[in-house]
């Protein structure tokens, strides 16, 4: 079998999978499909019916795609979406001078400014999207507009800066997927580091669209799973591995992992705090809260915006920081309090992923049946292409969803507790686990 001494499984050696990973065509074709869908979605959003529930843009982006991304693609295959994402497609083709080439194309290819590196801009972008989410999720023209802006923005950035600068430093969804990619059961990594020692051409780096050095990868945050390194390494030394979802934290605990960073920690804590806020706004019985989030520009919305930013950027991460600090004090002030807090925030990432999955279950299962009429009448113009235009709305799985949510959230808390206890004594762990429990309990109270 292909399981090496290190408890990982080489998917690149699986007979039926290898040709797919080693060929450029799956990604090219995948992108062709997503790009066509993306352009159609923009047109549907801007030109189709203004009724959200009948417009392809709303239903396919926020019910179909967003759900598949969070419930399937991210937990199973990390950044797999990023490899076929249509948003940077045009800029990448321009940079390469063609769709299949890896040559010299157009663009200034500047380095991304040092000061703007990291996840801070993505954090800001996600927060701003949060302020407008109630409108974004329901008004087709808003969804069409933001998708168009993302496409144009990515193209513009790609013409000025090198490679996937947009994806790495600006795309809010890119940061969101990247943070939880640490938990993905698959990852691109080198086979044998010794083989790289004599390597001078560094084809993996030359061909990496994300501008990282794949042979030295220690965490997956910036790996877009485009497989270019696997395809171009002259020594066949890059591979796609199935691995334990805890692997990155195991390596970090051994001191072999990538540097753990404050910007990413904050991004993770921010998204952890976002989940209950979204659950309250979009799934709670408080009509005035939902209406405030929707009524952009009003005083009620300003209050909501202020509360949203305060809770997600301040209160959530702040409470966590206090908890980590308290643990540091209880644990006898050993080591650096800041470094400890950053490591502990990574350890809570399973709770964040589970909170988003649980939130998505409530929202998506209830509204999934909007998909069928929209397939037949994507623009809301009275068509009936597949005969499903009159299929009635009906929530799915409402009887089992609460139990599933308990399993997912309690399971994730157990996972996080194991991660925390790997790096912290029980005294150091207690306050942080109390914070994680508070969030898990809050999510469950809102959801079930």
């Amino acid at each position, binding site marked *: 079998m292909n399981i090496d001494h290190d408890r990982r499984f080489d998917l690149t050696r699986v007979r039926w999978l290898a040709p797919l990973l080693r060929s450029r065509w799956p990604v090219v074709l995948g992108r062709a499909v997503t790009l066509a869908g993306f352009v159609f979605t923009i047109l549907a959003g801007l030109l189709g019916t203004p009724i959200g529930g009948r417009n392809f843009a709303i239903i396919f982006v926020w019910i179909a795609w967003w759900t598949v991304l969070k419930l399937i693609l991210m937990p199973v295959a990390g950044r797999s979406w990023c490899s076929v994402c249509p948003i940077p497609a045009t800029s990448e083709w321009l940079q390469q001078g063609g769709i299949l080439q890896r040559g010299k194309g157009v663009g200034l290819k500047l380095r991304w400014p040092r000061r703007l590196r990291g996840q801070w801009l993505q954090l800001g972008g996600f927060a701003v999207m949060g302020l407008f989410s*109630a409108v974004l999720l329901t008004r087709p023209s808003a969804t069409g507009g933001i998708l168009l802006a993302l496409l144009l923005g990515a193209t513009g950035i790609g013409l000025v800066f090198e490679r996937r600068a947009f994806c790495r430093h600006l795309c809010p969804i890119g940061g969101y997927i990247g943070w939880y990619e640490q938990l993905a059961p698959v990852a691109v990594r080198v086979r044998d580091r010794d083989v790289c020692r004599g390597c001078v051409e560094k084809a993996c780096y030359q061909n990496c669209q994300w501008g990282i050095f794949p042979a030295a990868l220690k965490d997956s945050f910036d790996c877009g799973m485009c497989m270019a390194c696997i395809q171009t390494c002259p020594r066949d030394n890059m591979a796609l591995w199935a691995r334990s979802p805890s692997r990155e934290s195991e390596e970090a*605990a051994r001191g072999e992992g990538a540097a753990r960073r404050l910007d990413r920690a904050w991004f993770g804590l921010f998204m952890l705090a976002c989940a209950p806020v979204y659950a309250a706004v979009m799934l709670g019985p408080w009509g005035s809260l939902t*209406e405030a989030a929707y009524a952009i520009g009003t005083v009620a919305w300003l209050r909501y915006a202020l509360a949203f930013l305060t809770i997600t950027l301040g209160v959530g991460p702040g409470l966590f920081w206090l908890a980590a600090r308290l643990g540091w004090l209880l644990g006898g002030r050993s080591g650096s309090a800041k470094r400890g807090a950053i490591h502990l925030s990574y350890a809570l990432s399973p709770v964040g992923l589970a909170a988003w999955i649980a939130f998505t279950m409530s929202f998506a299962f209830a509204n999934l049946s909007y998909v069928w009429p929209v397939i037949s009448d994507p623009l809301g113009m009275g068509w009936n292409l597949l005969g499903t235009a009159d299929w009635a709305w009906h929530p799915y799985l409402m009887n089992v969803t*609460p139990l599933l949510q*308990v399993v997912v959230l309690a399971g994730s808390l157990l996972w996080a507790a194991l991660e925390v206890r790997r790096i912290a004594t029980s005294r150091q762990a207690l306050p942080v686990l109390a914070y994680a*429990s508070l969030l898990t309990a809050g999510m469950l109270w809102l959801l*079930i």
Partner: protein
Amino acid sequence: MNRLKMPGTPWLILLLAALTAMLVPVPRTYAPQDRVFRVDASQFSFNPGVLAVNPGDRVTLELRSTDVVHGLYLDGYGLSVVADPGQTATLTFVADRPGSFRFRCSVPCGDIHPFMLGRLRVGPNWLLIRAMALIAITVVWSLVTGVTTKPRTQVAIV
């Protein structure tokens, strides 16, 4: 792990505690009553948004729409009713499924129609209470047993 001899023992304890929390029987005897609620539906909320009854109660919802056509679909029961503008529509049922259920507008009534939600609580929300017990068990267990996946280090923090 040092406190318990077999490596599997802590996991067995966790499993048993979790199963106990999820499966322990709870008292469910209430004298059934007739309950009538008048619920106003308007863009985009139900008023009152939260209703509470006991299991076995005979529940009548008088849904009155104050603006456009609204509906009320009750999760878990799969029941629904639609009220025309200014009209009252009535839904009567026996609340024989205990738990906490969302009800939602079932007729597209505007932009944030998908977020027009309310809640019906039928008895205490035992699933939530069990889940809270599960959370407490998980945390206490992880602190007491110190079980973790390998490699175990405190280097990163200490």
